């Protein structure tokens, strides 16, 4: 303990009466303070994990359970749609994260020395404050086949000659997810990058400029290395949310066309709650949970420990 409260209060040996008055020993106090939060979270993470492991060993249908052992896992490994959902998740999340990072960094670099930076920031934040389900509907309407204003604008600009079927084409459908996500969440990275840039020591940059360094030299050799911890944390948090993408899939495409936009989250949802194959969905959950726990531990050790301790 950093401070011992009693040493300043009690004079001489602690009397029996005082011991009775004090509710808990100071040694136990931090555990008691943190226990409620930890127990609450254990209840909502450990219990589900155990339950998922158990369910994944059964074939659950129509309220009946049949022991199938590793059957569900064996089925998963040979299930094309499961692998497809993993690939979709990686592709959509990867492209979105790359685009969002580039744009957010670009905008943050343009604006962080600006006189009106607070005003710009508020404008750029707006998309993030829209409910994700509303954002999904908004982009769905903008891409809606036949009546899409995006098609209309593209045709008027002479960029395409025909209506694009955004939700019917495998590449375009994934593209709609990326566009919607970039619009909605680039502000998240932007806000964090902006704070990182504003917190940077400007003298080093100034010195580099005096030595005749071009802006891209300063950026690659000074700004970017100094921003590393900020980048790591921001990308981690955004990366997690991208990998768990569900709302947009559920509202915009339902995983279509032919499963090419189905993410892992939607795969679990579809199997567990639409086809009521809960044992199978639980098996997928267990695999995803094990992967995320490993990823979370690695990420925390690498980035958060250094940044926050």
């Amino acid at each position, binding site marked *: *303990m*950093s401070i011992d*409260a009693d040493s*300043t209060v009690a004079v001489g040996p602690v009397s029996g009466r005082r011991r009775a008055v004090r509710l808990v020993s100071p040694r136990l*106090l*931090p*555990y008691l*303070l*943190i226990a*409620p*939060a*930890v127990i*609450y*979270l254990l209840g*909502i*993470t450990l219990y589900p*994990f155990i*339950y*998922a492991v158990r369910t994944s060993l059964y074939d659950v249908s129509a309220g009946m359970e049949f022991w199938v052992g590793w059957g569900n896992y064996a089925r998963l490994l040979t299930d094309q749609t499961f692998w497809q959902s993993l690939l979709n998740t990686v592709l959509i999340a990867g492209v979105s994260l790359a685009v969002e990072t580039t*744009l957010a960094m670009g905008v943050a670099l343009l*604006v962080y020395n*600006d006189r009106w930076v607070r005003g710009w920031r*508020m*404008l750029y*934040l*707006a*998309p993030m*404050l*829209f*409910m994700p*389900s*509303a954002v999904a*509907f*908004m*982009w*769905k309407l903008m891409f809606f086949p*036949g*009546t899409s204003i995006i098609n209309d604008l593209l045709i008027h600009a002479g960029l395409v000659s025909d209506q694009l079927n955004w939700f019917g084409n495998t590449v375009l459908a994934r593209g709609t997810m990326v566009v919607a996500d970039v*619009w909605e969440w680039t502000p998240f990275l932007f*806000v964090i990058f902006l*704070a*990182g840039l504003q*917190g940077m020591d400007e003298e080093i940059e100034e010195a580099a400029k005096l030595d005749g360094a071009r802006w891209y030299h300063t950026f690659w050799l000074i700004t970017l290395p100094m921003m590393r*911890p900020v980048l790591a*944390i921001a990308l981690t948090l955004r990366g997690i949310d991208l990998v*768990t993408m*569900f709302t947009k899939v*559920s*509202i915009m495409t339902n995983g279509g066309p032919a499963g090419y936009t189905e993410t892992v*989250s*939607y795969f679990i*949802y579809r199997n567990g*709650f639409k086809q009521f194959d809960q044992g199978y969905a*639980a098996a997928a*959950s267990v695999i995803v*949970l094990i992967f995320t726990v490993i*990823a*979370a531990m690695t990420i*925390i050790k690498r980035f958060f420990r250094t940044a*926050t301790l």
Partner: protein
Amino acid sequence: MMSRTRRRQLNRAGRAVLLCLWAAFCLLPILWFLTVAFRARTEIGVSPPVYWPHFTLKPWHELWNAWPVGDYLRNTGIAVIGSVLLDLVLGIPAAYALSRFRFRLRDDLGFYILSTRMIVPAAVAIPIFALFKNMSLLDTPWALMLIFAAINLSIVTWIIRAYMMEIPVEIEHAAMTDGAGRMTILFQLMVPLAMPGIVTAATIAMIFGVNEFLFTLLISYTPSAQTMSVGLAMFTGGSSGIIFNLIALMSFILFVPLCIIVFMIQGHLSRGLSMGAVKG
């Protein structure tokens, strides 16, 4: 050759153009969606698309008369405010323990709390559904309150922890010399001093609660528990297709107050969004 001042002026103009372009990308879809909210359904889903409609208040009346928006708002209020309060009750003491005590397992427990932010919601959806079914809490805002609190507890704890770390220990030493106990110090000294962090944490938790979609979709299925976020996905009534103007209208009901609240804490936003790791 261009003079130095002239080049600088051009630079500045170019930057302003780029910033305005980005603002247009961020804001034009919202403005267009606003026009969708106040147009008749005959001007949605037509070809060629209508950019500037005949504005009407009909969707507004239709929304309040024909749809349970009041219920959605009430459920959102109960679930979100309840969850934020629960998070503060659990998170403030935990943050205090993490920021001010040295004890075995401190780092492990702290990082365990942090790691719950990284769990894939869909992966725990089935067990959570079963859990609330056993507790007979399905389709109630209370279940949502409990789940939102669990989702946001990591964020709340870590944000408040970051702010508490910055309060000088000497203030506490002084209070202890005056005979104050640990709990007195926590509630009468640390909580007021960490108030910016607590407000930031509460705001971020509120935004995430309002936004939550997956669990809300799974464990609430009638207007007696559905929130705004999931309620607007119900506007897809059978033969009439997706009722986009009402969906747009619904989304602005919470967008406006959220903008105001975030405007007030915008200096702390980066700190909050990065779970306390990046100073704003």
